[in-house]
């Protein structure tokens, strides 16, 4: 082979710069999300609280409220963003996000049904969330989301898996589950709708260490599995016949990636509700940032997922004051213009 041919494969030099930029964004947004909030705590008091001293109030607010909230947000953000990227790849659809497979709708239905039954079983007179077994909501939501994804997968498998089948089945199942959930909510009586609405908007309000602990295994398992699917992911973005003739066991890897994405998305929806646009937008944002350095896409998506949710939640807390704006509303309000700008910039 002629060595004199100039190498067509120069490695991107600015990759590290890009990654450091992303890490800097994390390094800025996380402390801000912890240190800033509705309750004004002097910086010195906050820092003291974080290192074990400080006032009791500062310790309580920071350690019991803000830190777990930020941790939950970071984990959920990573899950949403990575799930969105995986789903966009395998469905070969730039508009894919957890709702396209019915995951969000499945979680919503499960949570609605669960709340309905627990109201009648445990607290017939109860009208507020704390009277209900809310600790189970993440698990119930996750199971609902996984159930929906499983159903979609089964249906699509019967017709030979493929991006189009999965997307169509997902949209159909999603619409059905959504309708069922709305039916349950409508038949429920107005007084308790508020409980569900808060969950539906996607919120980090009152998220505790339990939520972070619930999410952590999913995030960890998902991130650990990523190296396994790095090469298949590239191949899955081609059509099935090509991917297979390049040597990929298409169904096996399609299913693996689908399971991974479903676990990530369903756990995130279960823990914080269906936060709009994070799964859809973050991969596009990451793609815009990395340009041709496609190998950086995953790390950048992961960091941006964490930053977007943390920053969005902080914005919701600061702008809304005591009546904080749910993060789902913030991400939708900021996400739509950003998406439109990105679409204009990419030819």
């Amino acid at each position, binding site marked *: *082979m*002629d060595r004199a*041919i*100039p*190498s*067509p*494969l*120069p490695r991107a030099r600015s990759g590290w710069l890009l990654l450091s930029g992303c890490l800097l964004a994390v390094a800025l947004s996380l402390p801000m999300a912890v240190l800033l909030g509705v309750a004004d705590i002097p910086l010195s008091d906050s820092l003291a609280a974080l290192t074990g001293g400080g006032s009791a109030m500062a310790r309580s607010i920071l350690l019991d409220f803000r830190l777990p909230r930020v941790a939950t947000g970071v984990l959920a953000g990573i899950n949403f963003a990575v799930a969105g990227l995986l789903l966009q790849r395998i469905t070969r659809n730039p508009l894919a996000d957890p709702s396209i497979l019915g995951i969000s709708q499945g979680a919503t239905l499960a949570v609605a049904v669960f709340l309905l039954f627990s109201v009648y079983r445990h607290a017939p007179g109860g009208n507020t969330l704390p009277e209900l077994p809310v600790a189970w909501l993440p698990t119930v939501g996750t199971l609902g989301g996984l159930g929906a994804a499983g159903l979609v997968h089964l249906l699509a498998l019967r017709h030979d898996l493929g991006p189009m089948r999965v997307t169509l089945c997902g949209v159909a199942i999603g619409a059905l589950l959504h309708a069922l959930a709305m039916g349950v909510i409508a038949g429920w009586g107005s007084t308790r709708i508020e409980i569900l609405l808060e969950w539906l908007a996607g919120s980090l309000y009152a998220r505790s260490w339990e939520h972070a602990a619930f999410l952590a295994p999913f995030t960890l398992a998902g991130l650990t599995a990523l190296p*396994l699917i790095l*090469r*298949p992911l*590239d*191949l899955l*973005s*081609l*059509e099935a*016949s*090509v991917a*297979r*003739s*390049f*040597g*990929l*066991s*298409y169904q096996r890897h399609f299913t693996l990636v689908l399971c991974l994405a479903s676990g990530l998305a369903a756990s995130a929806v279960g823990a914080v509700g269906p936060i709009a646009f994070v799964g859809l937008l973050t991969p596009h944002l990451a*793609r815009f940032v990395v*340009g*041709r350095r*496609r190998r950086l896409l995953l790390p950048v998506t992961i960091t941006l997922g964490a930053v977007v949710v943390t920053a969005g939640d902080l914005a919701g807390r600061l702008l809304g004051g005591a009546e904080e704006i749910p993060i789902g509303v913030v991400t939708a309000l900021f996400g739509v213009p950003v998406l439109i700008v990105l679409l204009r910039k990419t*030819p």
Partner: protein
Amino acid sequence: MPVLCSHLSVAYGRRPALTDFRLSLQPGEIRGLIGPNGSGKSTALQSIAGLIQPTGGRVEIDGRPVHALPRRALAQKLAYLPQQPTAPEDMTVEQLVRQGRFAHVGLFRRYGPEDEDAIRWALDNTGLTTLAERSLRELSGGERQRAWIAAALAQQAQVLLLDEPTSFLDIGHQVEVLDLVHRLSRERGVAVIMAIHDINQAMAVCDAISLLQKGVLMFDGPPTALADSGLIETVFRVTGRFVHVADGAAPHFDVSLAQRRSARH
């Protein structure tokens, strides 16, 4: 024998797409697959590539049934390129060609010097070395087609299946692709099956031609015998004749447009 098909039949639902198809391919042979639209050329290629399950008969690659081979083992022996494949627009040429090495590196193995050499060789032979860092959206249709051919070449398989590789290319690039195919077969012993629309290109490049009509094999043999058979006119429903051009060269099919013209008047 690199490829052997016997009594191969494929049906889509109840509609038969290929009936009792046979083909045997020697190393270094170029086989042309011709026939009208919908005659089963692509179906034949896809079943040889193990992408669709035949309803009858069998396909053997290197003496083993194609469906018994794991996808990666098959990909090391056989590369297949469909008509007008698509890839994400932000993928670069080099990244696309790199996918061709998956058969060899698998999920985890690092790309070694032989992989980088294969990628470089594929880019060089398709004239894409200087375009390697371009993203696919920046390429012309012809360059894109060559990028896909490069990806298949990077696979370094001994059997190459091409579904209309020259369609949508200008005449210059058509000749380039055919030259490349010819060189591969002669210099590297690669066996090629190529669905192709241009009868004269098929006559000039192929060692043997299979003619399909509605899924049925009408002819299987060398180009000169096809010229003598008179089948081109009946299968494609045209009038024309084969013209002797030069000694040693395949005869040239000269289609007559007279009937069409008179029909219009």
